[in-house]
């Protein structure tokens, strides 16, 4: 990548940026904007979660319903990331290495879950896999329905993260292994998988992060049954609706913490991946 090579003239250019004064002003305004829209509100969630005192906070986050919702959210999100890691890697392989008519169309459609509003995604899945299913498959209001919705919305993450790595992957290694008598599965396990691992992991982490916060696609199909199909985001929504914003903030703080940890993990995996590259 040319961005990593710093030529002497570029170093010189860095020393006297023409836009310095306007750049500092722009940075200030942009940071202020980020604070007003994102940072202050998120700080408010954390700070106001203890408005009723620490015991109220603890009661809210340790209530049976909150714990059960969080446990289900984490488990189903983990399962989502795992299933899509397998199918996502497979689809990425098919899109990169296989040839068949209509491949470009399939490739374009992969991004559909990103473009389709989540509430529409929920309705779409409910139509096919709900009580009015034309094929008689009804999983609405079960835990499987939540998994299905999460698989739908997180599908592109792993495919789009594995695809470019697979395109760049040097095929000579595979051919060498094959010529030395390795079987397909050995080549996959010893050569392809280790090379793709950082991409699969970071795509999986993105899918996991998205899944734990997902709301729109889950809200209709899950039926929101407490202790069964209720995920944390829907639980928080119900608390807001029943006018308990402080309790909602407490549960949200826990969810926020999990999101931040995942974000941090993604950065670590990213650094590991770029070290892996060289």
């Amino acid at each position, binding site marked *: 990548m040319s961005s990593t090579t710093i030529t002497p003239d*570029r170093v010189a*250019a860095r020393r006297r*940026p*023409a*836009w310095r004064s*306007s*750049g500092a002003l*722009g*940075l200030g305004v942009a940071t202020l904007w*980020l604070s007003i*829209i*994102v940072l*202050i*509100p*998120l700080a*408010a969630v954390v700070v106001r979660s203890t408005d009723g005192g620490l015991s109220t906070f603890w009661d809210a986050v340790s209530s049976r319903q909150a714990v059960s919702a969080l446990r289900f959210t984490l488990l189903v999100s983990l399962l989502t990331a795992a299933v899509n890691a397998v*199918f996502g890697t*497979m*689809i990425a*392989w*098919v899109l990169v*290495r*296989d040839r068949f008519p209509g491949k470009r169309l*399939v490739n*374009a459609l*992969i*991004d*559909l879950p*990103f*473009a389709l*509003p*989540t*509430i*529409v995604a929920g*309705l*779409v899945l409910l*139509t096919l896999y709900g009580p009015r299913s*034309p094929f008689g498959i009804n999983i609405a209001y079960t835990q499987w329905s939540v998994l299905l919705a999460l698989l739908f919305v997180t*599908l592109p993450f792993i495919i789009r993260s594995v695809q470019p790595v697979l395109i760049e992957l040097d095929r000579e290694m*595979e*051919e060498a292994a*094959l010529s030395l008598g390795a079987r*397909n599965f050995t080549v996959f396990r010893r050569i*392809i998988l280790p090379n793709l691992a950082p991409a699969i992991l970071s795509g999986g982490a993105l899918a996991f*992060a998205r899944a734990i*916060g*997902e*709301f*729109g696609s889950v809200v209709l199909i899950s039926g929101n049954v407490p202790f069964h199909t209720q995920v944390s*985001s829907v639980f928080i*929504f119900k608390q*807001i609706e029943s006018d308990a*914003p402080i309790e909602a*903030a407490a549960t*949200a703080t826990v*969810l*926020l913490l999990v*999101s931040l940890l*995942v*974000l941090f993990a993604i950065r670590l995996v990213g650094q590991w991946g770029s070290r892996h590259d060289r």
Partner: protein
Amino acid sequence: MTVSRPWRIALRTVGLVYLAGLLLVPVGVVFYRTFEHGVGAVWDSITTPAAISAFTLTLEVTAIAVPLNAIFGIVMALALVRGRFRGKGLLNALIDLPFAISPVVIGLSLVLVYGVHGWFGGALADAGIQVIFAVPGIVLATIFVSLPFVVREVAPVLREIGDEQEQAAATLGANGWQSFWRITLPSIRWGLIYGVVLSVARAIGEFGAVSVVSGQISGQTQTLTLLVQKRYTNFDLSGAYAASALLAVIALLTLLAMTLINPRREEEDRA
């Protein structure tokens, strides 16, 4: 990998069946359900006063949120790529927050700050400004969720093109404004457009955050996605399908735009 033919076909079949079962068949069934009672019924259902006002509100909110995000995105990307300052890594990480946070938490966070009992809510109410359960809240929520798209698309392009051309322009006597309009902006054009397309799709489609701050007053604070849910919970299935189909068409147009822009964007990225 030089996989044998039966294996290749097996992998292809499993992959495509997974995609079909998860994506294509469900979306197809929704279009089928939408039009099963004829086009006239669909038209009637998306031209009711509530539907038209929801559509208009969605477009208005998008028209405010996306340009603001585009300007923020360019300025922030320039600062992150060209600037050298303390806390750059932290700022870079903070930009991604909206992608990692639940839409419901985003909605709640805005209520806690701009709601009647929020940090700034009291002062805003005294000034006669209602944010939560009104249009400004919906705009704030939409800006929040679509904030990172333009930064994330423009920053890599800026990094790739470097600043030699801008330096050359400056030595030839161009001021900062001129070199931005004539050099920087044209070279980040496709990355910027791609980011804007993603922002528009997200702005039109946002549901969770908007549903917390909107209050769902029909004809006033009801966006298109909220209308889908309202109709569904009121057992107006065909109405919900009609509004969904409209949103699905917008999504497909977004995909088309992405597919058309992507090659040019990648070219720009490599330039």
